[in-house]
């Protein structure tokens, strides 16, 4: 095709005009829309209990991957367990934001010790921590144990130390906590219901 300079300019101009009309909304458009992909599609679902208060709501935790050997589970979502009799799927604002609690960079993952008078926390092993607790308990019990009261009646009380248990304990661990510390003569046993 042979075009003169004038014809070429005309053709270019009309081409630009026609395509601009399309861009201005005169061309029909495909009517499509999409929702965001469902983000839990093949995640691994795990049941658990909310760690916060004594209500003990059931939660469903969703982890990345399908538990295959090379997939490293990472929590991506937590919501209430609809089959749990306590909360039937509902969660309070603390439970509803558990994901950031679990994945928090400030989450405590090992025992730490702050010596009396010190302002520094230092990382210790469970061995060390449990040994130290046992030693201090034994020393205190040896010093303050009351075998008999003023009237000479055997009471076997250890009143100088108390045990604060946690609300998220199961029946079994609650039973054990009670038996172990009562056997030592401890009278002050309580539960922190709003940790």
């Amino acid at each position, binding site marked *: 095709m042979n075009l003169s300079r004038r014809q070429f300019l005309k053709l270019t101009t009309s081409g630009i005009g026609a395509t601009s009309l399309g861009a201005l909304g005169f061309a029909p458009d495909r*009517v499509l*829309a999409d*929702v965001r992909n469902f983000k839990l599609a093949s995640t691994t679902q795990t049941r658990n209990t909310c760690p916060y208060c004594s209500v003990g709501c059931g939660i469903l935790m969703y982890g990345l991957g399908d538990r295959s050997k090379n997939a490293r589970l990472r929590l991506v979502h937590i919501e209430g367990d609809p089959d749990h009799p306590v909360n039937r*799927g509902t*969660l309070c604002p603390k439970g509803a934001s558990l994901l950031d609690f679990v994945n928090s960079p400030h989450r405590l993952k090992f025992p730490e010790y702050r010596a009396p008078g010190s302002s520094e926390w230092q990382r210790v092993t469970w061995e060390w921590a449990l040994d130290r607790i046992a030693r201090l308990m034994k020393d205190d019990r040896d010093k303050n144990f009351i075998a008999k009261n003023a009237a000479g009646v055997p009471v076997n009380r250890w009143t100088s130390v108390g045990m604060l248990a946690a609300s998220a304990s199961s029946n079994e661990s609650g039973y054990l906590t009670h038996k172990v510390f009562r056997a030592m003569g401890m009278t002050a046993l309580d539960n922190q219901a709003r940790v």
Partner: protein
Amino acid sequence: MALESLDIRRRSASQTRAPDVRERLEVAKLIDISRCIGCKACQAACMEWNDLRDDVGQLGGSYDNPIDLTDRTWTVMRFYEEEIADKGLQWLIVKDGCLHCADPGCLKACPAPGAIVQYSNGIVDFQQDNCIGCGYCQTGCPFNIPRYGVRDGKAYKCTLCSDRVAVGLEPACIKTCPTQALSFGAKQDMIDIANARLVDLKERGFDKAAVYDPPGVSGTHVVYVMPHGDPALYRMPREASISPLVSLWRSGFARTLGVLTMVSVVVAGFFHWMKVGPVDPDARPPREGE
């Protein structure tokens, strides 16, 4: 998810008819203000599900936190203290967020094809990939809900968890609500529950209790039970309606006028060029210093 494209009722700035033969269940959220304790679990669940973490804001002197909706806060509890005749000081807690109007002002005002769609289940959803960030949806909304995001220049609002509803789940806020102030289901069922609740409230002395399903936007897919009746107490419009400017600006008249103006400028320019010819640089009067 391609099937979802067959279930659009309306699409912004589009003339093409959407395939629309399927009748999907119309869904709705019921917010019973008389049951709400303002715990903000719905806010937390919304952030968690939608992967939104807004900046830490500033204290506004009330329990409101954050103090307003943003592109990354799609629902917010608003706390109002109102002196109400023969009821005394009342603490009114309103969960604010998109009402998913049957006749959405945002969609009508939107000039970007496909940036706002209404699914046949009633959900009004923003498609951010088509959004041009003009902010007209904010002007079009009778409830001042959509928010423009400075980070990406797109508008955002509550989706009624369209991704959850599409797979048959309830929205995240509704699932979490510990006091059953929120419910979700068929629109008709929500209206029935709300009316039953009105009977209950009236027996307890809330004789002005009312359901808020504003007819000015042909009803909404978020319905409120207001124990004190008057929507103005809850900072909601008594007569919700889309600004007449929206219909003017989106009308055939305005569009025709715009195209006519454009064409007449081109025609006038052409005739000017024919009659006067191109600018002659030599005929131009010399500037100072030339």
